[in-house]
């Protein structure tokens, strides 16, 4: 099937198998490997991308479902080499160790802050329910998101 998708501001038109997962389309067909695959049951959130303004787990979405949509992946968050405040905060607060969950965490965090610019710690923790990190115990991820929210407010 033919699909047209705009990813990180760039338009793509591709022939894809109907069963191709969006995450494989992004990684294998477009070479955007910043998005990761951490599980096969839609549990871990490593593959979270933003599609038409909403976060989706790209392992649970077919590429054909993305036809006509606009997608942002972690590869496209930094603009012209400028880190987003969320990325800055993850760096500053040691919100990552192995880095494998980070793409999904950052996209999730950006949406979380967009929806709630001044979240409480508990709201951040609740907002991360769909993302698993095995390295950090989440403490510094929560700190990072709170700091990023504060940076975006000021």
């Amino acid at each position, binding site marked *: 099937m033919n699909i047209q998708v705009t990813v990180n501001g760039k338009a793509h038109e591709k022939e894809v198998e109907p069963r191709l997962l969006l995450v494989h389309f992004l990684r294998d067909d477009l070479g955007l490997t*910043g998005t990761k695959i951490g599980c096969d049951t839609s549990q*871990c959130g490593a593959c979270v991308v933003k599609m038409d303004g909403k976060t989706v787990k790209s392992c649970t979405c077919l590429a054909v479902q993305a036809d006509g949509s606009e997608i942002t992946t972690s590869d496209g968050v930094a603009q012209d080499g400028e880190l987003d405040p969320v990325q800055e905060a993850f760096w500053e607060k040691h919100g990552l160790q192995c880095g494998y969950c980070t793409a999904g965490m950052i996209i999730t965090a950006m949406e979380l802050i967009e929806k709630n610019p001044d979240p409480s710690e508990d709201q951040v923790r609740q907002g991360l329910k769909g993302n698993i990190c095995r390295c950090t115990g989440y403490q510094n991820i929560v700190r990072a998101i709170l700091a990023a929210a504060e940076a975006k407010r000021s």
Partner: protein
Amino acid sequence: MTTRIFGSGIRRREDPRLITGDATYTDDVQLPGMVHAAILRSPHAHAKIISIDITEASGAPGVVAVYTGADTDGVLNPIPCAWLPPDCDIKAVDHPAIAKDVVRYQGDAVAVVVAEDRYQAEDALELINVEYEVLPSVVNPEAAMQPGAPQIHEDAPNNQAFHWVAAGGDTDAAFADADVIVKDTILQQRLIPNAMEPRSAVANWTRSMGELTLWSTSQNPHIVRFLGSLVTGIPEHKIRVIATEVGGGFGSKIPMYADEMIASFCSMQLNRPVKWTATRSEGFLATIHGRDHVEHVELAATREGKITGIRSVVYAGMGAYLSTAGPGVPTILHGLIYSGPYDIGATRADIYGVFSNTTPVDAYRGAGRPEATFLIERLIDLLAVELGTDPVELRRKNLIPKFEDGHDVASGITYDSGDYEPLLNMVLGHVDYQALRQEQARMRERGAYMGIGVTCYAEICGLGPSQVAGAVGFGGGLWESAIVRFHPTGKVNVYIGTAPHGQGEETTFAQIIADELGVDVDDVGVIHGDTSNTPMGWGTYGSRTTAVGGAALALAARKVKEKARLLAAHLLEAAEADVEYDDGKFFVKGSPDQSKTIQEIATMANVAWNMPEGMEPGLEASAFYDPPNFVYPFGTHLAVVEVDIDNGNIVIKRYVAGDDCGPQINPMIVEGQIHGGVVQGWGQALWEGVVYDDNGQLLTGSMTDYALPRAHMFPDMEILSTVTPSPHNPLGVKGIGETGAIASTVTVYNAVIDALRPLGVTHLDMPLTPEKVWKAIRQGQGS
């Protein structure tokens, strides 16, 4: 030295590539002509393979090749176990990369399909017809040793893989003379490590050169090359293993797995690059599990609360085959550390390694030491109840007094340094322990159940002296090496044999170098993870990277500095003895104006226009560091929990981790290690656990069924520390990668039992799920 960056919590230099998606993990690697492998795994825990028909699969769209055990037999050597403790009658059973006649666990490899894309490879798996004759199976390690249990390997009667004993002091006398003996049976349930990056391999065989390049999700690429050479027969110098970006391991990426060798085999057959990446559910079956002990343990004490002996009989599940380091975990890393931080005259560990029809078991964060800490700390809490004393005071009474340079314990090992009581006092003071106990009493009066758990631990890590490695059957050395190289512009690269995969040593090692050589930390690059450009090293595990690898690096830097000093003397036309160093500069004693920076020296050494007689050009050095002893971090952890007796739900109200890992190079990174370890330990106490059914089917076979800690399940923890340097380490440092997981499981467990004791609950098996807790409360109350 005037400035020090050692001790500063600077942010990590590896992060920019990780937060932008620029990093290249194994599954991100794409090579021209690359094909994809998928592995067919046994659906049965134990079965004979009667026949395999690959005809249909071979003709499926996109399929390039299908191989079975008949193809790999005799081409790939068996997957080796590399830790065979001596004097324990160990059965190093055959572990074929692809099963040929018998499958021994659900997940055992049976065939491999290689196809043009991953979807086609997985499609074709379903077209392979395997006829099995299902055999009886056994999953529990204690049950596997009972008469009549199904036999898993012909040459391992009663499924006994080994029987290893560590005994020191007179335990028989300690128990015969004891005023009090407390006992418990502890189930250290199986855990699934779940590094977020699934295992993956990209194998690229170059037939014309006879060379294999293998991208591998490994914690120890040099070991993969070493053992991979033995399995494939490719000479070691013609194998390059690349593991520069690895998404966590926690022990699960130590082993030499069959799958990476199968991918290599496929590449060699096809002369094309082959990628294999595990799905998460496949990883649940085919990546090692951790723990899996059934422990019968007891403790002897006097009426005054002096602990006189600990002994155990442990059935330690090994799974269907011996994984690379599997046998070393419940033995060396467990049975030798039964004293913990306490002065105990006699300890004895009787460890039976047992085969079962399950995924092989190997090191998982803490590896043997969480189990040891659990049994000691659990028994002490039981003793406190028996004696009617405060569990903290009981611990205090038995702590080893401060020592700075060696303390022998009953099992025969010598701790390096320890000062346990200050950290205990610091943690107790931080929470106001007495006030907490009073609050607990008040809450009980109104029917609310709060519990307090306090753990003191000492652990063994920083593996270790190579001579000891040899003596305990470890199939390699445990030293580390490093190269420090100044470039002509005065910038530095260091090349290390250890393989960080999330622990941040690119940053901490640069901090070590910045101070040792007086250069800016940003002028140091740290190269690791590729066997083609790093010196030999035994890898990152056992909290050894900084203690051993960091020490090697410091020693190499000191050699470089000494050469620079001699060259400076030559250039300053001063006597060597008169040239001194401070903060990146060499100067003539008494004339600080006459000086050269180390960068200037580096330039001169590299251009070599004016070298002293006999001095080689260049400014670099390598060092090999073999530690004289392990290191022994220690600490006190405290948990406060509340149990809702109406639904069995447990809430962690407060958690304090007090740890002493010696001088901290980067406190921010140290804290991060503690956070992660503690939460993994909570996972074992409260949520995680492998469930097999009686037929060896993994019921917790995906992230949907296996509960991992998530952010909303607990609050922030609080971190405290003291600094007790290791006397034998060139940097004084100990390890911090595993302490969290070592201490936190039993701390939370003891807190929960402490909460429930008034309700008649004295024992529960982990994980402490609400259902289990609720049922136990009902039983405790006799309803």
